């Protein structure tokens, strides 16, 4: 059942992505100011939005683990964080490419870029520490703790980058200002959907792997304990 769902989501996500890419490259007109490169926004922004969705899911799963001690929640948490970290990386890389094209530099210590990079580093720490903890219950508990602490940092990072001594270069968010032309809105929404479907499929794959890993670990203990 789970396997079928994974495949279904994966295939559906791929189809939406392909359809969307076709529209983006085939049908959409170039943007007046930026030319061709503006099309990266249909990957760049959906990646960031989906990363936030998966990180929030991981936070909920982490709190649920501490409350319920059910390892399913720990697996959800790590799967979501892995996918979210990958999406953050995608967001950073596409942003960097766009910046090189438009600003002539790969990287600027701009407030949005800095905050995304910090977010990426926070969760990278989570993924690095996890394998260092050998005992599964301890690993899950400590991971839940780190996940909660890391998520609490996100609003603080957003606050910190608004300090007067931090400079900005990034264009304003089109979603907040609402001046995304109607012709772009469809591909934009499909971009979010495609990455969400693909991300969820990956989460399901990782969930399955984590469950198997726990079973193997417990069988090994059973075998070696008496």
């Amino acid at each position, binding site marked *: 059942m789970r396997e079928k769902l994974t495949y279904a989501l994966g295939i559906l996500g791929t189809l939406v992505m392909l359809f969307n890419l076709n529209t983006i490259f085939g049908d959409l007109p170039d943007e007046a100011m930026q030319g061709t490169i503006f099309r990266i926004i249909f990957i760049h922004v959906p990646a960031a939005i989906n990363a936030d969705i998966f990180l929030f899911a991981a936070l909920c799963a982490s709190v649920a683990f501490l409350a319920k001690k059910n390892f399913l929640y720990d697996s959800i948490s790590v799967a979501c964080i892995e996918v979210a970290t990958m999406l953050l990386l995608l967001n950073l890389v596409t942003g960097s490419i766009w910046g090189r094209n438009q600003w002539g530099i790969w990287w600027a210590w701009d407030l949005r870029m800095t905050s995304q990079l910090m977010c990426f580093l926070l969760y990278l720490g989570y993924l690095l520490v996890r394998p*260092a903890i050998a005992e599964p219950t301890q690993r899950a*508990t400590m991971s839940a703790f780190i996940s909660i602490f890391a998520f609490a940092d996100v609003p*603080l990072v957003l606050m910190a980058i608004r300090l007067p001594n931090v400079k900005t270069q990034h264009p304003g968010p089109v979603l907040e200002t609402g001046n995304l032309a109607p012709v772009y809105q469809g591909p934009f929404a499909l971009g979010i959907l495609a990455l969400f479907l693909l991300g969820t499929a990956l989460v399901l794959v990782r969930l399955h792997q984590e469950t198997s890993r726990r079973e193997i670990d417990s069988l090994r203990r059973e075998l070696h304990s008496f």
Partner: protein
Amino acid sequence: MRAGFAAAFAIARKDLQTELRTRESLTASLSFSLVILVLFSFAFDLGREELYAISGGLLWLVYSFAGALIVNRSFARELPNDCLDVLVSSPAPGWAIFLGKTVAAFFLLLIVELVSLPFFGLFYNISWWQSPGTLLLVIFLATWGIAVVGVAFSAVTVNIRLRELMLPVLLYPMLIPLLLGAIGTTTALFTRDPEALKSMGSSIQLMIVFNLIYTSLSLYIVEFILIV
């Protein structure tokens, strides 16, 4: 509640007492911060203006490096003879153990900071004493933040392989908002730039919010980490 605070006080006193007796992390941290100060002076060859512009960042980099060394020992100090088991099985609640250790780490880090501050002024020829009250407030706020988050992660990493390496990997990204606030205010206090001085309020606010969030979160959650 009162018994908890008494226990926290006893644990803080114990940590300070043993540390002042052995001076393990204190000397290591202090000499490390002096070495970094010297290294930075070789690394950057700066004019007076530029030096003042980065002075806050310089100072807080040194302090956060020193802080990692201090908090690393916090829970590690309980490992020999399984002392942590005795603390946890005692009636002292988890938050009291955490609070006691954080207070101790705060004072140890404060000692390191206040001793290395004159050296910083001396090496870089920076007049840091112009508004001592505000500077002390900034140092208190940021040091408490480093101590809280650091001791919390010291509890998380106490039983894992490569503890000394893992702690900074987790700690520094988490501290960035706090350090940004501290760096901004400290630079403003050193340069006396009127514009920067005026906008100091938001940085101090940020540090207070950071401390409130992480102090309450840690006190609430630490019981789950200590008793797995």
